[in-house]
């Protein structure tokens, strides 16, 4: 059983948001009288466990089951499906119903779509002739608070769907989620977006405001001052690179401060302290895992531990070290041949495909694509080593621009220099730059956030043009006309502080996912004394190099 994250110290009232979602779900169950079998989309159960305790669901007469191809095994005459709008799930439901009818079982079926019903799914039900047997509803769960400063929109496939399939439904969903937040916390007056998807989300958000204006009285100050939208595409590098050591450390650190004490958060800003932290707790990863299990902690957290364990077996491998070295070399983008040979060898050795792909993507990004000869060669070697069914994956990656033919000179070195992504001099005693936390590499996304918060896009137009996708910046709402607020939006950090001493809020949304490393970096930023803002992070999903790469790994077979 999962533990619901503690949101007491959140800079905005996420608790009420969550309570709203709880109430909506309970109401759905209450409106279906009597005992019922609640069949949950397995991918939703994680999100749900962050919202509501399963005991509450049971108290409302719901038997819980996971949705799968297997028929629902229950005595209940009422079956309630809680699913995302996905074709494969519709097929399961249809097959269940067909099976029941063929056995002469008479049941009432309810399908609740999360977060909303979609024509295309109902079309499937219609084509399978079960539409008349089903009562369709929706459960508008658009936002799930993962932590007091992290919100997830739970869109695992957003990245791939957008970039490969051209299905931009997730962008609408993100805009809707933000719009929903705005209806609780006021219209966000400043919006800055970088990347194609982000600019589109900002667009849709504006569209929504025009369609159904958030009606807050003009007197109320919006709680969130600035919205920064950043595409994963702009910065695939930091998500694909492993930064293994840091991430591992970060996860354990995050565990510590969540499970043990909140205070560690401030303490943990220097790496040195964390090393000691590590040694004093003196637990192996598996011990930690047991510990966490005992605490009935989040599945999210168990996942972290799993990941950590996975990583630690990985680190024990000899190749890990050279790999780490290689990532560094790739980011520095100075020795093309070494990298090429290394990756080729990994393919020859048939190392796990995901890790090979991650390096390959990194290689392609830092070089703005590969020369045609190398590109074709590596792809051929991949197909030969792993099978021809992976041709679909190669196409996906190419469509997404993650693995491509070189068309122009790489601008990576320019970007790297302009944004000081690789910081060589770090003052260990008094760290001030995020690069320190990240072994000398500052994630591009975080640098962008830093700039966007500090001064907006205008001073850095040139650099932004180097990065993929357009950018936009706008002021919204009737607020900009009011003089008191326009000073608040001014460039100076000092005036950004709200009168009562609280810092004003920035919502940073990563479209396509955010890594734990980035979250930690943003927390580090937020913890800086000179920082005038509290940061809240919104994301389609928490990702790491593997999960992100895996979404592209579609096979033909």
């Amino acid at each position, binding site marked *: 059983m999962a533990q619901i994250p503690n949101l007491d110290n959140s800079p905005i009232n996420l608790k009420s948001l969550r309570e709203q979602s709880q109430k909506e779900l309970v109401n759905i169950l209450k409106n279906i009288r009597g005992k019922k079998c609640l069949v949950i989309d397995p991918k939703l159960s994680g999100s749900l466990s962050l919202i509501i305790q399963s005991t509450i669901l049971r108290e409302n007469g719901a038997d819980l089951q996971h949705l799968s191809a297997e028929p629902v095994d229950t005595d209940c005459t009422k079956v309630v499906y809680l699913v995302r709008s996905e074709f494969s799930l519709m097929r399961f439901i249809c097959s269940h119903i067909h099976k029941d009818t063929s056995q002469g079982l008479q049941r009432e079926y309810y399908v609740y779509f999360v977060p909303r019903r979609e024509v*295309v799914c109902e079309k499937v039900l219609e084509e399978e002739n079960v539409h008349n047997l089903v009562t369709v509803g929706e459960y508008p769960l658009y936002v799930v608070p993962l932590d007091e400063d992290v919100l997830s929109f739970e869109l695992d496939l957003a990245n791939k769907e957008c970039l490969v399939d051209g299905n931009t439904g997730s962008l*609408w969903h993100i805009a809707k989620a933000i719009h929903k937040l705005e209806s609780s916390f006021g219209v966000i007056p400043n919006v800055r977006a970088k990347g194609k998807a982000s600019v589109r989300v900002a667009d849709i958000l504006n*569209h929504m405001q025009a369609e159904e204006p958030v009606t807050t009285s003009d007197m109320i100050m919006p709680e969130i001052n600035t919205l920064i939208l950043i595409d994963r595409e702009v910065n695939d590098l930091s998500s694909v690179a492993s930064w293994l*050591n840091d991430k591992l450390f970060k996860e354990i650190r995050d565990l510590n401060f969540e499970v043990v004490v909140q205070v560690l958060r401030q303490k943990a800003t220097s790496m040195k302290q964390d090393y000691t932290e590590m040694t004093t707790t003196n637990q192996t990863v598996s011990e930690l895992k047991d510990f966490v299990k005992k605490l009935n902690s989040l599945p999210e957290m168990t996942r972290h531990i799993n990941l950590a364990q996975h990583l630690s077996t990985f*680190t024990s491998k000899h190749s890990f070290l050279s790999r780490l070295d290689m990532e560094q070399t790739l980011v520095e983008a100075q020795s093309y041949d070494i990298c090429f040979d290394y990756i080729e060898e990994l393919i020859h050795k*048939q190392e796990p495909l995901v890790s090979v792909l991650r390096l390959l993507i990194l290689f392609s990004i830092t070089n703005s694509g590969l020369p045609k000869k190398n590109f074709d060669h590596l792809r051929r070697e991949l197909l030969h080593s792993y099978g021809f069914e992976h041709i679909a994956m190669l196409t996906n990656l190419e469509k997404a621009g993650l693995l491509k033919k070189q068309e122009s000179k790489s601008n990576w070195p320019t970007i790297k220099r302009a944004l000081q992504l690789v910081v060589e001099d770090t003052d260990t005693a008094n760290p001030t730059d995020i690069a320190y936390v990240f072994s000398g590499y500052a994630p591009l996304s975080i640098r962008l956030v830093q700039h966007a918060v500090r001064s907006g896009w205008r001073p850095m137009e040139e650099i932004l043009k180097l990065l993929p996708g357009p950018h936009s910046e706008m002021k919204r709402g009737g607020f900009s006309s009011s003089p008191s607020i326009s000073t608040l939006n001014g460039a100076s950090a000092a005036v950004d502080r709200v009168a009562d001493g609280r810092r004003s809020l920035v919502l940073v949304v990563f479209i396509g996912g955010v890594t734990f490393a980035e979250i930690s970096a943003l927390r580090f930023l937020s913890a800086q004394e000179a920082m005038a803002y509290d940061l809240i992070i919104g994301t389609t999903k928490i990702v790491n190099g593997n999960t992100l790469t895996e979404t592209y790994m579609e096979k*033909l077979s």
Partner: protein
Amino acid sequence: MEVRLYDFSPKTAKKIRVGFVRKEIRNPFSLGATNYLDKIIVIDPDRHDVLLKNEEEKHDQIVILTRNSIKTSVINKSKTLISPNSPSPMANVSVAAEWQLLRNRYYRKPELYPMRWKHIDLSRNKVACAPFGGPIAIIRDDSKIVQLYAESALRKLRIFNSAGILLSETVWKHPGGRLIGMSWTEDQTLICIVQDGTIYRYNVHGECLEPNFSMGKDCFEQNVVDCVFWGNGVVCLTEAGKLFCVPDFKEIRPCKLAEIGIGDEELPHCMAVIEPQYTVSGNVEVLLGVGSGIVIVDEDEVRFVDEEKVGGVVQKIAVSRNGRFLACFMHDGRLVVMNMEFRDFFKYQCESALPPEQMAWCGLDSVLLYWDDVLLMVGPSEDSVSYIYDEPVILIPECDGVRILSNTSMEFVQRVPDSTVSIFKIGSTSPASLLFDALDHFDRRSAKADENLRLIRASLPEAVEACVDAAGHEFDVSRQRTLLRAASYGQAFCSNFQRDRIQEMCKTLRVLNAVRDPEIGIPLSIEQYKLLSAPVLIGRLINAHQHLLALRITEYLGMNQEVVVMHWACAKITASLAIPDAALLEILLDKLKLCKGISYAAVAAHADRSGRRKLAAMLVDHEPRSSKQVPLLLSISEEDTALMKATESGDTDLVYLVLFHIWQKRPALEFFGTIQARPLARDLFIVYARCYKHEFLKDFFLSTGQLQEVAFLLWKESWELGKNPMTSKGSPLHGPRIKLIEKAHNLFSETKEHTFESKAAEEHAKLLRIQHELEVTTKQPIFVDSSISDTIKTCIVLGNHRAAMKVKTEFKVSEKRWYWLKVSALATIRDWDALEKFSKEKRPPIGFRPFVEVCIDVNEKGEALKYIPKLADPREKAEAYARIGMAKEAADAASQAKDGELLGRLKLSFAQNTAASSIFDTLRDRLSFQGQLAEMGIGGHRTGFRAQKRDFAVYLAFRAA
């Protein structure tokens, strides 16, 4: 006796016209205390006050006659003179003079309107008056024989407002026999029921609403003879004595009530209903005066109440508004008021034993009975007042009184509200009355004003409240104003009165006065208005097309204007057939923009229904909510615009909606053309079709020339074939698979951009053939669908080196890969000899590292040691030694490499390795050596940094191990 009445209207003030009462007034002064009159004076109705005051001084008692009744008011002067100090109530006399006292309660009957209509004789017509000051429908009564003057023989249904202004008229041409019942429903639809049971419905504009309904076959055959309506329902009685009911006109579903079992020769004397809301069953109950008792009928049963209990033959029944009392007129001229258990409260013996034409409850404590020329009001305890009418009247029951419609006027009989009584009652010394009087003094600059206020200081708030309340009940605007001024005057002296009370009342009165204007003609009392509620009133106004007033009222009351503007827009469209689209659009937009968030789509939908598709398209363009806009665009066949709008909104669900719509509507090729031009729609279509419409998707790609996509689909199909158990491994059914892949290969090769895919498909087909052959020759179904590398490894593992070699050459596998594959395959089967032999075949193209790695990976230190010395790079050598735990050799190699970072790492790794305790001494040496190196400055900042990073990783690795 002859009474002369003098009409003294302001315009003819000097000329006195003499008229005669056309009928003898029965016992005209029986109500008065005296039997003689000093004189008769004629009073200008507008100058009551002045004249009465003059007369007051001369006479003790005054009897006032008005044109159609004797408003008997007896002034008891002596009472007012009891206290010489008390303020003079003279100013109020005129008000109270018009009241009638019924035991201890006062009633008044102000005129609401003189009727504006001309030549209407109610007696010739059937009349339906809607409650709450609603419209009046009039149609010539075809059951009466009337003389036609200069009028058409065709009957006209005319609808007036309560002031007698014609709203609409229409010719009545319906078949089905005589019109039996006519009444207004709650939403002001006029229901007309004719003999054969057909129900016709009209709106206030005289438009017949389609369709007509029938009360059913029985009614059709038996003829309807009587109808009783209530709120939204009706009960019909047929000639055969059967009852049929429509419980709700919103959903006309006639049903039959239980059979009473009476013959057609003895139809009920009278009929009344208890509304469903007051019955236990929740269904309507019908009370029938049958024979010498009462019968109560509902859907399921019939109850008889016998004569003994009722006390006589009932000729007329009226049910009180709250459904709790019955007023029954008996055969002997008695009026009996009883409760639902038939226990009587009071009886009143009327002069006439003929049943009254009309009988109605006035509020809850008196009953009005109307005979030809007399209106009798009977209150509890056998008191009564009679009014004389020399023209026919219609009684219209309201929640707080009864409206009386005659040919010439609309009056309202009402119990005088308590607050009004307390102020205007003759001789009243209530605080409210004194306050009202104080204002009069104040206006006349009399010091008595202050005196009055002092007298009532303690009860000032209640006095103010009474003035406010009384103002609310007044129909006369100037009196409303005076009362409110009195309230406001009093409020100034009292600290704890709710200040917005007066303001609220002013607001309410403004609304009431506005709708009471004869042009609007809705004479609502404040009680009726509260019961009706403002939104319903607005609904009625807009139904009557009084949009401007409705808009003003909503604005004034701070209500949502959307409903008004929306209705206006729709009505405007309906009424503007002659206005061209563009001009009408301008007119509409001008008003629609008043209302933020109004649904343009709804107006557009109306335009579409009115046959103005183009206007609809223009309107829907202004709808900001795409979720409303897009479906409407589809319904008016603007698919392309719909697709554009859906795409703009970013809502993929809407795009799908349009997509499926177009898909269904257009031929495939046209559909393909449409979506090909719209990337989002195209991509979404592909996503859906990929899952559900494979063949159709293929058609799409072919028609749009995307051959490579077709190729991918074919290639994918080849795998699906492979999954089919019929084509399981080793079976000759691989043929079709290969064919599909070859087809894909050909399609890929059509375009230059896909040479890579083309080549891959070709190789794949070739691989499948080879794998198939291998499975046949080895009789092992383990080859198909593995990769080229795996196939090579499998061959080697099986010892079939020739086959492996063949695959290698067939697919031009590079030497590098070949070495990795063979080395790893040999290690898997632990064929160390073969491995060694292989290492010596020739100088390996990638050195001996693969050999070392595979040996270490399977923990064969001895084997690994064969190759480690052959490693070229000392660093690799050092690491290899370290991995098999040979610390000394590792250190040697490391020092040979002169790599400080490496050394540091090795040191750390052995420090964590407890098994290697024996090498600790060596490690100490290394430590000092390391120290020296550090002093020598080997490893700059940068490498130091990396080392740090690695240290941590290694540390973790060993901890986890």
